[in-house]
């Protein structure tokens, strides 16, 4: 049967023989460690970046870090409840990849989502207020840390079930292809999430139907307290894509230029060939899995310090830009002060904002009950209501 989903196929060589570099027309790299030093500043997607665009990349990373540090303090002060999964250490991945997106590209991620949210342009106020459970939060206090959304910015969440977002990202790519748009969906996940079944069902469909979804495994080495070597058989994780004839690569995530190159290539390929890819990006989280994790059982302090010293994405990019003459240390300090002030202001905003009223529990459940005039259904939709306070 001639079918839409079996036609837009790229050349055979695009999707086979991943281990033979000569027969591989893909631009994706499979081994991040064996190559000689590459100067990613010189890669095509970075060399033409304006100074202000470069400064913006640095600024975004600093803003994310300061926002999260401030949110941690708010958590410790008791203003934030539940889980708070901090992205500190991984900033270059979200910032670098989002900066490579075009107008019709979309993104969806897991619960460690503050970095992606700020990178797509959500403002600190709505994010911090959401953490505080306030009415002014991006989800009016109904989503919390793990469930930020900004569909107007092509950001589809924030998902709390490990791996649960992988079929959704596939659906976004499907909708893009169905509508004839030249866009792709970046679907982020952790290393631990690669062991969820729906991910493999999704890989199969993505390849079978030639869908422009880019699975980005942010490999920070741990699934909660379980190191990769204890949770996954077969390395690298991205190679699992090979079973489905999907292009894959492993790259480093501490250099925002490298992340940009990785994602730019994958996006180009997705746009051009309408094919999926699996990109494993090595990174590291400095804090515990969530704020509730005392972080004493599964890794050493030295390991953390070592990464911070050698691979901190913000320090590395700052040094790079100073060296390029794009920015001075004083200017970086100014950016930092501004980011701290912005984060502080967002905490003040969140604190001053009202909590949602219990009656709002019943809003935003169904389109229908939110739009009573336009509803075509009848009957009772809800069976218990918040008790009145009177």
């Amino acid at each position, binding site marked *: *049967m*001639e*079918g*839409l*989903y079996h036609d837009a196929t790229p050349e055979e060589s695009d999707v086979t023989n991943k281990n033979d570099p000569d027969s591989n027309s893909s631009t994706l790299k499979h081994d991040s460690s064996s190559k000689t030093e590459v100067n990613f500043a010189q890669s095509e997607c970075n060399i033409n970046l304006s100074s202000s665009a470069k400064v913006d990349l640095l600024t975004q990373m600093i803003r994310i870090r300061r926002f999260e540090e401030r949110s941690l303090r708010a958590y410790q002060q008791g203003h934030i409840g539940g889980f708070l999964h901090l992205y500190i250490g991984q900033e270059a991945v979200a910032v670098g990849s989002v900066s490579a997106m075009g107008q019709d590209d*979309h993104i*969806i991620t897991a619960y460690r989502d503050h970095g992606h949210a700020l990178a797509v342009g959500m403002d600190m106020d709505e994010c911090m207020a959401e953490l505080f459970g306030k009415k002014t*939060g*991006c*989800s*009016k*206090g*109904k*989503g919390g840390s793990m*469930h930020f*959304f*900004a*569909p107007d910015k092509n950001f*589809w*969440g*924030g*998902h*709390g*079930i490990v791996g*649960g977002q*992988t*079929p*959704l*990202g*596939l*659906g*976004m790519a*499907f*909708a*893009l292809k*169905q509508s004839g748009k030249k866009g792709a969906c970046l679907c982020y996940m952790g290393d631990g999430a690669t062991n969820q*079944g*729906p991910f493999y*069902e*999704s890989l*199969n*469909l993505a390849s*079978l139907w030639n869908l422009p979804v880019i699975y980005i495994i942010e490999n920070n080495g741990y699934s909660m307290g379980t190191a990769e070597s204890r949770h996954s058989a077969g390395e690298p994780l991205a190679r699992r894509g090979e079973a489905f004839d999907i292009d894959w690569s492993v790259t480093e995530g501490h250099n925002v230029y490298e992340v940009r190159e990785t994602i730019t290539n994958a996006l180009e390929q997705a746009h051009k060939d309408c094919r999926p890819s699996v990109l494993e990006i090595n990174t590291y989280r400095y804090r515990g899995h969530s704020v509730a994790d005392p972080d004493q059982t599964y890794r050493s302090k030295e390991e953390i310090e070592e990464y911070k010293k050698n691979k901190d994405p913000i320090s590395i990019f700052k040094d790079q830009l100073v060296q390029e003459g794009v920015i001075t240390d004083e200017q970086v300090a100014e950016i930092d002060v501004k980011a701290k002030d912005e984060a502080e202001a967002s905490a003040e905003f969140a604190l001053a904002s009202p909590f949602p009223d219990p009656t709002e529990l019943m*809003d*935003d*459940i*169904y*389109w*229908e009950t*939110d739009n009573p005039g336009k509803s*075509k*259904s*009848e*009957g*009772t*939709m*809800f*069976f218990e209501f918040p008790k009145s306070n009177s």
Partner: protein
Amino acid sequence: MAIITYREALNQALSEEIERDENVILLGEEVAQFKGSYKVSEGMLERYGPKKIIDTPISEAAFSGLAVGAAMMGMRPVVEFMFWSFCYVAFDQIFNNAASVRYMSGGLINVPIVFRGPANGGTNVGATHSHTPENFIANTPGLKVICPSTPADAKGMLKSAIRDNDPVCVMENTILYNMKDEVPEDNEFLIPLGKANVLREGTDISIIAHGKAVHTSLEAASVLEEKHNINAEVIDLRSIRPLDVETILQSVKKTNRVLLVEENKPFCGVGAQISYLIQDQAFDFLDAPIKRVSAVDAPQAYSKALENAQIPDHNCVIASALTIL
């Protein structure tokens, strides 16, 4: 009005909505080339092509989730489950994603999706293929669930479900697929969700049912009239959530006696909620305890001898009714 089968009525609803709205697609296992495991989508691949009628691999989690993601982006996918029993491997996508995304996003994102397929016992296919999950779907705010029992309802309610901006789960029944009845040909024939149907007016007892149990109840009502001179009212709920509480209460206030009939299992079943509502809102009108007839509380059995004893027939309904009359 044409007389067509329940199956053809579903096909009409799907076809008309696909023609009407370019965002509507049908996807699932064997829906295209094979024409549907129960031939519901017969002829649709030929008419609408593989971009609209899409065969999926056996990956309920991925294709359900894919459809939810596409719905978030504005499409209106109809997902066919070969059996609702198979939705369990996609539970996360239905219950965590489809049901919760609107809420967790503070109303920013709609999920206009339909999940449909047969959900019934009675065909000797054993426990894994005979689930009736309407009760726990109804237990999940964010989801709607309907159980059309006639060809006309199948058409009018499925069309409403596809046009609905929220996730709707449509419980069909393989035993009803061949049922024939009059169905309006009208493209705009829509039956609102949440509107019960009083199929038989009566004064002595309200028999309230959904799905195939509606037909069992009608059969019982005829016997009650002929043999026992009892005039039973029979209400087809049609929709579980939203629920037509008003029609239920009106009937109870008239007959003062209630028998709830379903093929769902009893514990925390649909009838449990309805009897709670009746005692809460019409206690003073009751002249007898509310009675309930449901499937026997065991995993669905394979053997005909066992399964026939498991699913309530009209004799069970009559016997139970007589205890409160």
